[in-house]
């Protein structure tokens, strides 16, 4: 697993209080990992802070799974 993927996973585990094994690429934040709309906003903000990037709102809307988050950040870095 790439460094980015493991850091993304760690943030999700921490913020959503889920088990690491549940954080698979296809897992949806809201449908599979129990996030509500505010949790999702918080996750995006944590990704921005951790990776020192800006994720505009219109692009944040397209990040709804673990895999989408990892690919977005890999491209943005």
């Amino acid at each position, binding site marked *: 697993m790439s460094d980015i993927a493991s850091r993304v996973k760690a943030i999700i585990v921490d*913020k*959503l*209080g889920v088990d690491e094994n549940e954080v698979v690429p296809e897992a949806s934040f809201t449908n599979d990992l129990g996030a509500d709309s*505010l949790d999702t*906003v*918080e996750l995006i*903000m944590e990704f*921005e*802070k951790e990776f020192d990037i800006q994720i505009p709102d219109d692009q944040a809307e397209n990040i709804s799974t673990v895999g989408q988050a990892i690919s977005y950040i890999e491209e943005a870095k």
Partner: protein
Amino acid sequence: MQLKRVVVTGLGALTPIGNTIEAYWEGLKTGKSGAAPITYFDTEKFKTKFACELKGYNPQDFFDRKEARKLDRFAQYALVSSDEAIADSGLDLNAVDKFRVGVVWGAGIGGLETFQNEVIGYAEGDGTPRFNPFFIPKMIADIAPGNISIKHGFMGPNYTTVSACASSANAMIDALNYIRLGHCDVVVTGGSEAAVTIAGMGGFNAMHALSTRNESPETASRPFDATRDGFVLGEGAGALILEEYEHAVARGAKIYAEVCGGGLSSDAYHMTAPHPDGIGVVRVMQNCLENAGLKPEDVDAINTHGTSTPLGDVAELKAISQVFGAHAEKININSTKSMTGHLLGAAGAVEAIASILAMQHNLVPPTINHSTIDENIDPTLNLTLNKAQAREVNVAMSNTFGFGGHNACVLFKKLN
């Protein structure tokens, strides 16, 4: 219309001298002080370095990590104490009409620590506003009853009363009236506060409101003592289940006491100073007696607001003498803030609970830390100094007054 009768059927407490009702009562009757050096932050540069923090409270005992992160401590305390009260009431949550169960809570400030930390985070950044999406919903004072209703599905009236240190007394009186008027069968009421923070201590210190007796925190809260020098900030929560009398009887509930009246008034005088003649305080006790249909001679015990400030304590006792006349010296007057410190918006609830427990046990908790007589206080008054006093308590009054000049008073009566 005939008003319904209202009784107390459940209690919960999370206080600096005990984290359950049982532990709280043990602390009250033995005269335990909850004051100690502050552990939450570095107090090196603070004038006051102590407070009445909760002891041994661990959020992980009550909430999973994700839940706890979304709850300011004042909301956590509300959930913990109301859970204890609901369990104590024996209410079958599947049997009650949840549209007729309200939650009316009191908080003087709300999520002060959340507000403080979010603003510090912003100030330390580059000016980009990166506020947490939970900042506002964690901080707002009404989120405590909101969370209680979400947890249990209570769909009756739901809000927080904000009147500084009178907040939870206002909440109890609103709860009483909803049931009296037939709007609710049950109301979860009480109050919580968690202001032992950098902003809370710094702000109250700036007002010269807090005791600075850093060499002896446990004796700093000394209501009615000539050497009192301000209040000691406390934190925690108190919860009460108020229930319509017939509703409680029909389910065979244990009944602690009847809530027989509430009094409300305002000083209309100064933002923080009490009125020198105590006009509002006299009026609130008179209002309360009238509302309860009781005479001054009926009252056996008064848990005063008694914060241990130079002006407030004397003004309140003068008002008691004025309202109760010759009967004043037969009343057991006390201030449980000598033990718990001042829980601000939670004070009205935790002190009302102390009054109810005093009735239940026929034992009036003491005003601890008294050593020097204040010449300005009428020596014929029984201030229940230093040791609990056993006596029959059939009617108990609880006073609370808040910055802004808000006065609230509640009367409880033993059910015979």
